[in-house]
Structure formats: structure tokens, C-alpha cells
């Protein structure tokens, strides 16, 4: 082995890298960005208080006493409401648990996220035991969604389907479109009657077929092989998953305009894909994000995709539900914006 030849190869790599300012910048910026996100997400030890709604006649002496007693418990914030209003606030996420005081007390939890549910139940049963006295048996627990047997995978599955569907299609679309540019065929296409809008629409149509196929594979594998339980209609799940993949194609096309080669396209992963993994509700619920990061989640298409897919899969919402429709509309807006951006970014001129 010749040290000189090895040194020549190493030296050449260093010179090439030195001139690739983007790669060099990424080498420095990407770890700082990713580690800052992780720090902001899990670094702050500030457990959110469990929001409990007491339903029942708050004027009766037992209810008043229980409310007063639970309010004194650490880590609980308590208010009272009618049963319907209380369940509604569980549904919209503004409460974690409802204690129903009609007859013998019972507890209702939201249940779609096992980690959150177990945290809620631990804090609540401790406070209830203290309030009701050790002689009273623990009140029964009902689940709005999921159940005591819901696994972590059941709640993670929708997020993972959305995330990986997005990731694969994004990469595929970005790299394919880039090859059009690097192989010179884009030049030929632009010197033909084909318009930029037609080109982008053609790409979208061509990839949609594969996006749909991928959505089917992801869903079937998750449900049939991994045994993830789901509530909603499988058609609704498919519609949302296909929507995710389609946005990913649109974004991939957009991003490929800003890359000169495959390496630069791959460099968009830590900038586009990873932050969405941390902030879009896949790992940490969006409402538990630090205040500083929550607006970022709102600007990410995956946030809406994961919310919609979770609503459909875990909570069994139909496609026509207001929340799901709103999420799909926002996803469509992201998709259209990315497509228009992609069409505009295909410059005829190469400076």
C-alpha cells in the first residue's frame, strides 16, 4: 500500500469538499439544527398538567368535595362541565380525562395515544385514591378511542405510514426529476412544445400511480402483517395516505430545482424530512411542543397528514368529518403551492 497514493485520494476528496460550499455548510448546520430540535423537544423537564373535567352535578356535596380534593392534587388542573361538554372536550383534545360522578364514579380517557393515556391514568388514579380514601375501589376506566390493549404501535402506525410514505416518494421524485436535468433531456423537453406546467403535471400523474401502489403496500403491511388495529374505513385511510404521497412528489419536484446533482438532492433530507419527523406530531403530540416550535409544525404538510390519518385510523372519523376535511384541504393547498413552485422553478435559462 502506497501512502502517497492514499494521501492523493484523501487530498483530492478534501479539495472537492472544500469547493462544495453547500455540503460543507450542511456538515456544520445539519447536526446543530437536528440536535437543537431534539433538545427543545425532550430537554425541558416540565410535565404538562393533566387536564381533568368533572362531569355530573357539581352542586352535590360529593362532587364539590371531590373537585376541591382533586384540585389540590399536584399535576392536575380541574374544572367541571356537563357530561356532553366534557366528552366533547376530550374529543377536541382540550381535556385528558373526564371523571363522571353519576352513581359510582367512573373515568373516561381519550386513549388514542397510549403513552399519554398511561401518564394521565397514573396521575388521576393516585389523586382519586387520595380523594376517595383507600377503602373505595378504583373507579372503572372507559376509553373514547383505543382501549387498554392498544399498543404503542397502534398509535404510532398512522404517523409512520404518513412519514415513510412521504419520505420515499419525496426522494424518488426529487432524484428522478434531477436526472432529467443532469442527463440533458430537460433541455430537449424545454425545446419542444411541452410547457413547464405540462411537464410538472405529467410527472405528478406518472408518480401518482406509484404513490398509490406504495400507499396500498404500507397500509396492507401495517394492518395485515404488523396487526395494527384500526377503526376507520380502509378507503378513508387510503385516501389520506395517497394524498401524503402526492404532496411528497410535488415537494420533491420543487426541491430538485435547487439541486445540481444527486448528492445535493439527498442533502435536502436533513432539511425537509427530519425536522418534519420531530415536529409533525409523529413523536411528540403537536400540542405538547414547546411554544417556540409549534408554529413550525403548523407550516409542515406532514403535521396535517398525520393528524388526518390518526383521526381516520385511531379515532375512526369518516372522511367527511370536519377535521379530516380541513386537514385534506390544507394538504391540497401545500400540494398546489409546491406544484406551482416546481413549474416556476424549471428555468429555461441555465445561467
Amino acid at each position, binding site marked *: 500500500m502506497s501512502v502517497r497514493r492514499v494521501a492523493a485520494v484523501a487530498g483530492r476528496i478534501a479539495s472537492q469538499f472544500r469547493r462544495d460550499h453547500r455540503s460543507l455548510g450542511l456538515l456544520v448546520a445539519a447536526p446543530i439544527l437536528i440536535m437543537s430540535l431534539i433538545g427543545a423537544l425532550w430537554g425541558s423537564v416540565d410535565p404538562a398538567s393533566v387536564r381533568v373535567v368533572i362531569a355530573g352535578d357539581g352542586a352535590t356535596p360529593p362532587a364539590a368535595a371531590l373537585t376541591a380534593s382533586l384540585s389540590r392534587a399536584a399535576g392536575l388542573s380541574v374544572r367541571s362541565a356537563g357530561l356532553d361538554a366534557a366528552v366533547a372536550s376530550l374529543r377536541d383534545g382540550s381535556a385528558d380525562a373526564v371523571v363522571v360522578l353519576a352513581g359510582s364514579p367512573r373515568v373516561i380517557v381519550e386513549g388514542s395515544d397510549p403513552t399519554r393515556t398511561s401518564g394521565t391514568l397514573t396521575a388521576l388514579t393516585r389523586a382519586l385514591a387520595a380523594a376517595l380514601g383507600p377503602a373505595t375501589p378504583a373507579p372503572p376506566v372507559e376509553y373514547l378511542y383505543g382501549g387498554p390493549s392498544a399498543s404503542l404501535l397502534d398509535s404510532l402506525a398512522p404517523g409512520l405510514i404518513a412519514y415513510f410514505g412521504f419520505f420515499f416518494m419525496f426522494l424518488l421524485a426529487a432524484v428522478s426529476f434531477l436526472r432529467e436535468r443532469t442527463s*440533458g*433531456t430537460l*433541455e*430537449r*423537453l424545454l*425545446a*419542444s*412544445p*411541452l410547457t413547464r406546467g405540462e411537464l410538472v403535471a405529467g410527472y405528478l400523474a406518472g408518480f401518482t400511480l406509484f404513490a398509490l401502489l406504495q400507499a396500498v403496500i404500507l397500509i396492507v403491511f401495517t394492518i395485515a402483517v404488523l396487526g395494527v388495529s384500526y377503526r376507520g374505513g380502509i378507503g378513508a385511510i387510503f385516501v389520506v395516505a395517497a394524498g401524503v404521497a402526492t404532496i411528497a412528489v410535488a415537494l420533491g419536484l420543487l426541491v430538485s430545482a435547487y439541486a445540481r446533482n444527486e448528492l445535493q438532492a439527498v442533502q435536502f433530507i436533513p432539511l425537509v424530512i427530519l425536522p418534519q419527523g420531530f415536529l409533525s406530531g409523529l413523536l411528540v403530540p403537536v400540542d405538547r411542543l414547546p411554544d417556540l416550535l409549534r408554529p413550525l409544525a403548523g407550516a409542515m404538510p406532514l403535521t396535517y397528514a398525520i393528524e388526518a390519518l390518526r383521526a381516520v385510523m385511531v379515532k375512526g372519523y369518516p372522511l367527511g368529518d370536519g377535521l379530516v376535511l380541513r386537514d385534506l384541504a390544507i394538504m391540497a393547498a401545500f400540494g398546489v403551492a409546491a406544484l406551482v413552485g416546481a413549474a416556476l422553478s424549471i428555468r429555461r*435559462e441555465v445561467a
Partner: protein
Amino acid sequence: MPSPAIQARGVTKTFGRVRALAGLDLDVARGEIVGLLGPNGSGKMTFIRTLAGLIRPESGSIEVLGRSPSRAVADGQVGYMTQAAALYGELTVEENLRFFAALNGVRAAGPRIADALATVDLADRRTSPVNTLSGGMRSRVSLAAALLHAPSVLLLDEPTVGVDPVQRREFWNHFRSLAAAGTTILVSSHVMDEASRCDRLGLIRDGAIVAEGSAARLVERAGAADLESAFLILAEASR
């Protein structure tokens, strides 16, 4: 009298600090074959890309068949053969041609593809993936792709790079018959043998035409023995 197929007046284009076109004037009549000769970086390619509607000039006017280049391209009147054979390597020769035919709105592409493949002598490689072809064969497929829609104006950027002499002669025979049928052809080249086959040559240097005329006239004007020396003398004189 019909307008010239190509009419360029005072065309300029700057990339950053590089002045690629500096007031270029050129007329090409319909059915004429004009060669653009010039050293690397002289602006040949920029000019051809301008005619293909890929670059918008900063000043001056440029018309292809009496309209803007991008209009002429959108109307399917322009065929453009890029220097590197821009084709899809995974697809077969025929699939590539079918795709470009569709883009250019060619109906009943089958017979046209067969014609184009016969022209470039590749009928027997119709079903070969382009990846498996030699560089010269790819150039031929690329030319076939530019011919499919029978464009009125054909822009050829160094069309015979990597093509053997026999095949090159075939190419030129075909260009001649196209021109006789009314197709206007603009060829960039630095192969002198190729240049001498053009009706007229434009010698381009630093983004402008510095000498123009038939090969014989240029040789005579430079007082040179052949086209290559004439090219060197005229290019030097223009500094």
C-alpha cells in the same frame, strides 16, 4: 418574398461577467444550410440555445419563421439536436422516439419512426435500450428524435461528434435532401470537412459573426490554402 427562416439582429446575452453574445447578426434563408464555426466559448452554443427558445436575449431581436423562437418551438416548427445525446437510457430506441414524437404532436408515429430510423441506419436496433448503444449510435438516435416531426428549422449542435466518416457522409446526404425539400438547417461545428459542406458559413468569435460567406469565399478572402487556415487567419484578424 418570404421572410428569412432565421433573422437575428444585434443579439446580446451576458452570463454573469461573461459576454456570450455581443450584437450577433445573422440571416438564414429558407432551405439554406448554414454552418456556425468558432472556437469553444465563442457563443455558438448560446446562439443555438437562443434559437431553441431556451435563452432569452437581453437586447436585439431574433425571429424564427417570422415569430419569436419560443413561439416557433411551441408551434412544433423547430427540431433541436443537443450536443450530448439527450435520451432516456433505460428506454429502448423506439420508446425514446415514441416519446419525443408524442411531445411534438406527431400523429401516427409508427411510420415516421421507421423512416427516421432508416435515415440514421438503426432500424435493426429499434428494441435495444439506449444504454447499450455506442456513443455514435446514440448521436444517431438523437438526430432521429430531432427529425420525427419534420421541423421547418433544424438546429444541430455538433451533430456528428463520435459518428464515423461513412455515417457522417450519410448524415450530410440526408441534410442535403431535407434542405432541398425546404428545411432550414443551422449546424454548429468545428469539423472543417463538415463546414465545407454547408451553403454558407458564419465565423463566430466573442459572441459576434466576424466573417460570413461560402467556404470558397472565405478561403479566397483570407488568401489561405484551405478552410482550416482561412478560419485561423480570419479569427486572428478579428481580434
